[in-house]
């Protein structure tokens, strides 16, 4: 207990130092009240102690931080279409390297691409995979809110099994909501042989450590961060951090990293909580608790257990 207190304290001291630095993401942006994404962006930029160039795939974050004549970014920032945030940034990074060789650019400029799950898991997957395979010196951050929230909560391949969205509605014809399991993008990215990690804003120290570590690695990096959306998840506005914490504690969103092909679980919850604790507060899963849907809940729990056990096993083998 004593060491834990001490750790907590040292973390806070660092936080105090951090609070004296400029946050390169300004208030006045038009993200919804209580959105998880600005917190994610803020934490990623806070952990980045270098000049940085950002490219942003279309999505909530992009449309509400650059409404014409206003920008919330205090970094060079490029708007791109849904599918090419990674491609655009890989071009910028290549240009930077060329200019660096000629001595026209300062050293140690970092490149970060932000994309939502729609722009990353679905539409932007080809350009992301290409940029990661080519090994551009950039970090791609996906803030995963589990659907196309920007256009009105349509399902994406990151939408969890059983979720009710406008294109996977739960009703009399299909009482279960989304019938497919979500794509495991972090592991797909890990399979590119790059640094890939999964993080959550509730575990901010873990998140910032991963970002810091990513910047130390030369080459392509990918971090997938959960970003609760109170509109799409149908929860109260004050719930975003609490839900991201529950996602980790129920092992719905395990925190791990893949480096040199080795997987390591970075946060093991003290007590693995039942999936219900994460699912029940969310309106998008309300239908799962009506009679006749018990099988679905069991399937969800089984899916989470299976993934978690596999991760732990791989993590042990790697050690």
């Amino acid at each position, binding site marked *: 207990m004593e060491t834990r207190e001490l750790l907590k304290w040292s973390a806070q001291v660092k936080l105090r130092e951090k609070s004296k630095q400029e946050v390169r993401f300004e208030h006045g942006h038009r*993200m919804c*009240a209580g959105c998880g994404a600005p917190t994610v962006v803020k934490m990623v930029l806070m952990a980045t102690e270098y000049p940085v160039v950002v490219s942003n795939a279309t999505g909530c974050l992009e449309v509400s931080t650059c409404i014409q004549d206003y920008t919330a970014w*205090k*970094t060079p920032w490029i708007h791109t279409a849904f599918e090419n945030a990674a491609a655009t940034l890989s071009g910028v990074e290549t240009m930077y390297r060329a200019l660096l060789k000629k001595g026209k650019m300062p050293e140690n400029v970092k490149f970060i691409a932000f994309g939502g799950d729609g722009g990353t898991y679905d539409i932007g997957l080809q350009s992301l995979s290409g940029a990661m395979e080519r090994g551009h010196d950039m970090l791609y951050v996906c803030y995963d809110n589990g659907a196309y929230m920007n256009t009105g909560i349509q399902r994406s391949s990151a939408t969890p099994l059983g979720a009710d969205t406008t294109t996977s509605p739960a009703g009399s014809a299909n009482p279960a909501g989304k019938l497919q399991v979500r794509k495991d993008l972090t592991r797909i990215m890990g399979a590119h042989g790059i640094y890939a990690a999964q993080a959550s804003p509730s575990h901010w120290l873990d998140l910032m450590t991963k970002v810091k570590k990513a910047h130390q690695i030369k080459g392509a990096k990918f971090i997938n961060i959960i970003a609760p959306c109170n509109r799409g998840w149908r929860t109260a506005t004050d719930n975003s951090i609490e839900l991201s914490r529950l996602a980790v504690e129920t092992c719905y969103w395990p925190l791990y990293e893949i480096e040199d092909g080795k997987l390591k679980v970075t946060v093991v919850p003290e007590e693995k909580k039942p999936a219900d604790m994460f699912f029940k507060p969310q309106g998008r899963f309300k239908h799962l608790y009506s009679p006749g849907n018990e099988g679905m809940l069991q399937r969800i729990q089984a899916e989470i257990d299976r993934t978690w056990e596999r991760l732990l096993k791989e993590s042990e083998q790697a050690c």
Partner: protein
Amino acid sequence: MKKWTELVPGAVVLEAGSSARFKTGSWRTFRPVWLQENCIQCLMCWLYCPDMAVKVVDGKMTGFDYDYCKGCGVCAKECPGKQGKKAIVMEPEGK
């Protein structure tokens, strides 16, 4: 609102962080109130605020920036407080 002829070609925004000129405080229906006596200065409110609306001066929480706070309540929920007493509470706007 600028006319299209007045915009920079390519719709480039040249002023970094210009969104600070757009105040989002009017979105709020609940306002966070800081009770200094219960505050342990852990800065969790500052860290988790999605709107950068917690004023921190020299490493210490000093109150809220109501020009930008949208009243989501994340700070009040995450506040550990002192001996179970929260240092941030949400109150209805206009009360």
